[in-house]
């Protein structure tokens, strides 16, 4: 089985001292959905944002360890972060469309990469919208502002926007926490389809969602990975009592 991402001894500190990571070791497999579960503030978001160096925008005081994607350490200062972010897409917990039209939201990533050909952009937009199961709903109003869409549609737009770049890895940071149950199901359906082509890491917004979608599960607690195993094992025979307590709802 191919290991897409290998995280070795990753540690991270913000300059204000909050939400750090301590000695994270994870081997994330290609074409699987890996779920990061655990109570809020445990470092899941920070971990995700380290994978595509989005944390560069935050006040990070110190990063240690290695994050190897396809064998290359992305924490290396020489890394081409622009290329990295195109390869590792992310969807955030709130639907965050850019203040542009539906079409422009999706073509944005391609345009900043220098793509100018209209037909290439058209085709990419259509493909991405199909993948995110949004095409049927918006194909007649692509030039409307994205803000006019419903919350669920906006979030699928954000997924489409990420897919348009043809990334290899998709990070989803509680992607359905602001959505109604029907939109949530649509997104989860898409994920199941998408994992054939992509490596997916999701911080689900509850343990049930992890149980529904995940192949592998990592339990994050206070900046550490307590346990990492197949979803079946974590949910039926957790090794650590804290994992057990979290899954059975004793805390979190």
């Amino acid at each position, binding site marked *: 089985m191919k290991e897409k991402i290998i995280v070795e001894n990753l540690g991270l500190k913000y300059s204000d001292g909050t939400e750090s990571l301590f000695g994270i070791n994870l081997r994330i497999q290609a074409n699987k959905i890996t779920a990061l579960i655990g109570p809020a503030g445990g470092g899941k978001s920070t971990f995700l944002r380290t994978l595509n160096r*989005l944390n560069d925008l935050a006040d990070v005081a110190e990063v240690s360890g290695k994050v190897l994607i396809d064998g290359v350490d992305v924490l290396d200062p020489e890394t081409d972060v622009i290329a990295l972010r195109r390869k590792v*897409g992310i969807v*955030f917990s*709130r639907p965050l469309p850019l203040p542009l039209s539906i079409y422009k939201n999706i073509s*944005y990533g391609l345009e900043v990469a220098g793509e100018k050909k209209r037909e290439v952009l058209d085709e990419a937009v259509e493909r991405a919208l199909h993948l995110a199961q949004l095409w049927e709903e918006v194909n007649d109003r692509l030039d409307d502002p994205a803000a006019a869409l419903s919350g669920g549609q906006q979030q699928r737009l954000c997924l489409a926007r990420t897919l348009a770049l043809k990334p290899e890895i998709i990070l989803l940071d509680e992607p359905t926490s602001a959505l109604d149950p029907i939109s949530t199901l649509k997104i989860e359906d898409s994920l199941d389809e998408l994992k054939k082509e992509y490596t997916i890491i999701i911080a689900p917004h509850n343990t049930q969602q992890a149980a529904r979608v995940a192949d592998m599960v990592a339990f994050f607690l206070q900046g550490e990975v307590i346990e990492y195993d197949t979803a079946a094992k974590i949910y039926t025979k957790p090794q650590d009592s804290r994992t057990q307590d979290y899954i059975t709802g004793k805390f979190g």
Partner: protein
Amino acid sequence: MQKNKRPFFFNPKLTEKIGVSALTLVAFLTVAPIVAVVIYIVILGAPAISWEFITAMPRDGMRAGGIWPAIIGTFYLTIGTAIFSVPLGVAAAIYLSEYAGDNRLTRYIRLAIINLAGIPSVVYGLFGLGLFVIFLNFGTSILSASLTLSIMTLPVIISTTEEALRAVPQSFRVVSTSLGATKWQTIRRVVLPQALPGILTGVVLGLERAAGETAPILFTGAAFFLPRLPNSPLDATMALPYHLYVISTQVPGMPIQIQYGTVLVLMVFVLVMNLIVTLIRSRARARRQW
């Protein structure tokens, strides 16, 4: 009722009523002079306004004719100021909002901006005289005056632009970056367009102030009396505010009509600039997507 037995000054409801009325009165009295000024100037200035007054050269030692060169002069000075101060000010604001770290250098820059904002306009005039007129040998000219006004306007443009940039939600920057945009691409494609109304507001207010200034151009570019239009940026020029100063204090036997007419023209200019600001703001509010 227990409450009503207290002496009136312990009655919080009554105190509130009196207090609120008093504050309302103070607030409206504070702005009343402004309304009075506008009405007064319009009434007394309107009879002086004619096509000739606007478009003719002054004659008879400015006691007759029009104020065309002063209007054009102020227009040139405003444009000149905009050419220098807008790009520099907007870029400086982008630096402060998007690039500057929380360090000593940034604190010095902020201190410098606060300082620039506080320097008296006449001191700018002296500086412009020393640097642009004499040292750089631009002479008493539109160029010298515009450069002087630009530096004076810079803090207004920087601070309003920075505020507008900071008001753009951080999440847009994060999203744009996550899609592989460089820092500058993020600024140009997302942040600047969203901040544009705020920036325009600042620019207009800054230029309005620059155009109304007299002290900085006294020794750098203003001409007392020049009944022709300037030919080049190295020409001195008449300007509306300075012209008003001249005709209201320096020229004996000045017909009052011409003075009121000049004030009215200046005030219409200010009103129009303010109207533009109001329009930009209300349009932006209606269009904002966040």
